[in-house]
């Protein structure tokens, strides 16, 4: 990690040392439960409890939300979250379960909610006590998010919500939801509003959560149905009809292009989780017998492995270069590439691994002889979730072409 240290400010240097000491003492070690690849795939209460406990501890120690002001439960530090993240990721800890809360809800609430609401919502969000989910996509509103039809009708100082959301990760565990909906059917972009909704308390009372099953056979995503759910107007974050602007804050941070650094931990591999990387593919190639030798000796395999390794390295060097203004012609040019590159990279790496495995690449999770316990086909299929969710690769390219290159809008 020493690499990042060189330009630490005084505050950052001290904080880094503090984080390092704390993690050294409090690292939970090999997890007691089998963890999925990411918080979005948490499937059991047991996993959730383990991870919530970890986030709570990190928050209590001041490693979560460090850059937010103290009044809202933050650490009141400046540009220290990235330091905490570096130390946490470097030490390969478990990840934080409240990924949507920390990455999307927190900055949105912070920039758009009332002080009262911030003080009420953010501390339990940072601590992981309250898990958050996101109610954006709908069956008819995927890439074209602004066409959401979930409708809220005004009723005094309350709103009555009816509609249907999809791809709602963590909804079955969530306490709160950030919800983009329509309050005016006559304007597309100006008819939207943005709410925070206490969802756990409403389960069965106006809110139904149904698991959506992925092509892999796993659950993880949900559908959320609203039937006459009543929500206080106090939970509306936007000036009426300006919900789209609020949603932009959420999306910007979702794409890693926001200004508030998302608290991140992770890197700890529970026994049987696979990292989709060139390194793992190289290991697979070395293990895979192929006419007298191994796949690692096949020049075509080697070439493809190096392509992936080079792309991986380029992606991390992109992130490094993004913080050197002199080496960037456009401030968003690199940041807006992150999601696109990472998702397509993992898709291609998984496909390469399957080619390396050959016929054995068809062996799936339940097969005892499957290479990497059948997680390569799982990773390959799941990679389409990543190239589709949170703005398909096609939408990402539109955004890059229009915002960065200044080309005409394609819609």
């Amino acid at each position, binding site marked *: 990690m020493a690499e990042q240290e060189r330009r630490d400010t005084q505050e950052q240097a001290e904080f880094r040392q503090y984080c390092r000491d704390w993690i050294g003492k409090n690292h939970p070690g090999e997890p007691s439960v089998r963890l999925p690849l990411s918080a979005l795939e948490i499937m059991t209460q047991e996993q959730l409890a383990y991870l919530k406990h970890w986030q709570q501890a990190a928050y209590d120690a001041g490693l979560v939300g460090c850059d937010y002001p103290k009044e809202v439960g933050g650490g009141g530090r400046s540009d220290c979250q990235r330091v905490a993240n570096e130390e946490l990721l470097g030490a390969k800890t478990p990840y934080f379960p409240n990924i949507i809360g920390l990455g999307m809800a927190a900055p949105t609430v912070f920039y758009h909610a009332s002080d009262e609401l911030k003080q009420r919502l953010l501390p339990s969000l940072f601590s992981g006590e309250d898990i958050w989910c996101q109610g954006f996509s709908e069956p008819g509103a995927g890439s074209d998010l602004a066409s959401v039809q979930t409708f809220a009708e005004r009723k005094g100082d309350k709103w009555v919500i009816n509609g249907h959301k999809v791809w709602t990760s963590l909804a079955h565990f969530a306490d709160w939801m950030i919800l983009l909906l329509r309050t005016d059917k006559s304007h597309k972009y100006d008819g939207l509003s943005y709410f925070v909704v206490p969802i756990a308390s409403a389960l069965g009372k106006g809110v139904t959560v149904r698991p959506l099953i992925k092509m892999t056979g796993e659950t993880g995503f949900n559908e959320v149905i609203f039937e006459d759910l009543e929500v206080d107007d106090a939970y509306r974050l936007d000036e009426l009809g300006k919900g789209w602007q609020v949603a932009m804050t959420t999306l910007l941070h979702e794409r890693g292009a926001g200004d508030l650094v998302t608290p991140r931990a992770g890197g700890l591999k529970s026994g049987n989780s696979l990292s989709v990387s060139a390194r793992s593919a190289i290991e697979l190639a070395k293990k895979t017998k192929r006419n007298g030798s191994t796949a690692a000796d096949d020049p075509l395999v080697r070439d493809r492995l190096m392509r992936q390794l080079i792309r991986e390295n380029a992606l991390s060097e992109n992130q490094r270069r993004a913080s050197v203004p002199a080496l960037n012609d456009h401030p968003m040019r690199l940041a807006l590439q992150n999601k696109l590159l990472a998702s397509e990279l993992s898709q291609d790496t998984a496909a390469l691994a399957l080619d390396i495995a050959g*016929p054995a690449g068809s062996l799936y999770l339940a097969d005892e002889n*499957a290479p990497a316990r059948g997680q390569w086909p799982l990773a390959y299929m799941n990679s389409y979730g990543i190239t589709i969710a949170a703005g398909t690769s096609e939408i990402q390219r539109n955004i890059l072409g229009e915002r960065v290159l200044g080309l005409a809008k394609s819609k």
Partner: protein
Amino acid sequence: MPQPKNFGFEDEANLLKDSARRFFAEKLPVDALHQLVAGQPSPEMAKINAWPESLWREMTELGWSGLTVPEAYGGIGMPYVAVAGLLEEHGRAACPSPLLPTLQSTAILSAAGDAAAQPLTEIVEGCSVSPVLMDESGGTDNPGVAVEHGQLEGVAHFVQDACKVDRFLVLAQHGDAQEFFWVDSKADGVHIEADAIVDLTRDQATVRFQGVEASKIEGDGATLLKQALPAVWMLVSADMVGGAEWLLQTTVDYAQQRKQFDRPLGFFQAVKHDLVNVMIAIDESKSLLYSAACALDTEPERCLSLAHMAKASASDTAAFASGRAVQCHGGIGFTWECYLHLYFKRQEHSLRLWGDAAWHRARLADLVIGEIGAQAA
């Protein structure tokens, strides 16, 4: 003999293809197929082997199992171009049946001629077979089964539809030579260990042989296999081409109906050009498929290289068409309830079986350019 301009695709072939298409459309519509093989979603479910056995009976009654069996043994002796058409439809329906391995086995047995009269007759009578050839790397050079004291001993991998078929056609090492054996899949000492695979429309197993009595098929196994492999590759390619076409058409329909930004998806060139590229890939594979099939019927001297081309192309097309279909569908295409995954998984399974694209290109290069180092030598 030069290839006929129309690939020898005559009326009988056309008739077979059309009737097969109607047959599958009527007897195994995709929603019924999905209900049958994907009823209980779970990532761990892959060992379930659900298939419409009665449908297979109907197929055999139509004579499809014995299509390529020479008339001399009571079969129909259909040309391969006609069979390619049938398997295209079989793949378009993602049909869970032992038709593919049975026809692949028939190719080997037909090469053996009279020595295989008995097995061929059984196939005509509706018996299903799967070839047992592969070692754990998927290669066919060093069979894992050997003949010891006149009995079969050893392990074979990646046996297709092993849980469905009545017989196995086993390649076994016998001293320096290799021989084929005809084995009842229920025989004593035959242990079928189902693999858990992604493909929900087929099954696959590791098969162990312990002191299995089996009837030998006269003739050098390696030679028979060598003769039959081009047909084996062409047949699986046909299934893949049909599946890819289903994925294309299904995605095209969706791109016509689904609207975003007040326009059908197909308006956007990102989707439109993707789908056109898929179409182009399919057409290349399909043209190569029929020229390989035609070569098997009429031009033995070119059938090896054309079969390499067909499988290499079909494998690339299968991967490409599956990926683009899911991507162009967006979220819904990533769900279990959407039928795409049945085809996606079947194609993923087929494309790396019987040699992947790179392997077939490498073998083709050996034929066209000469083996590596041959020049120097």
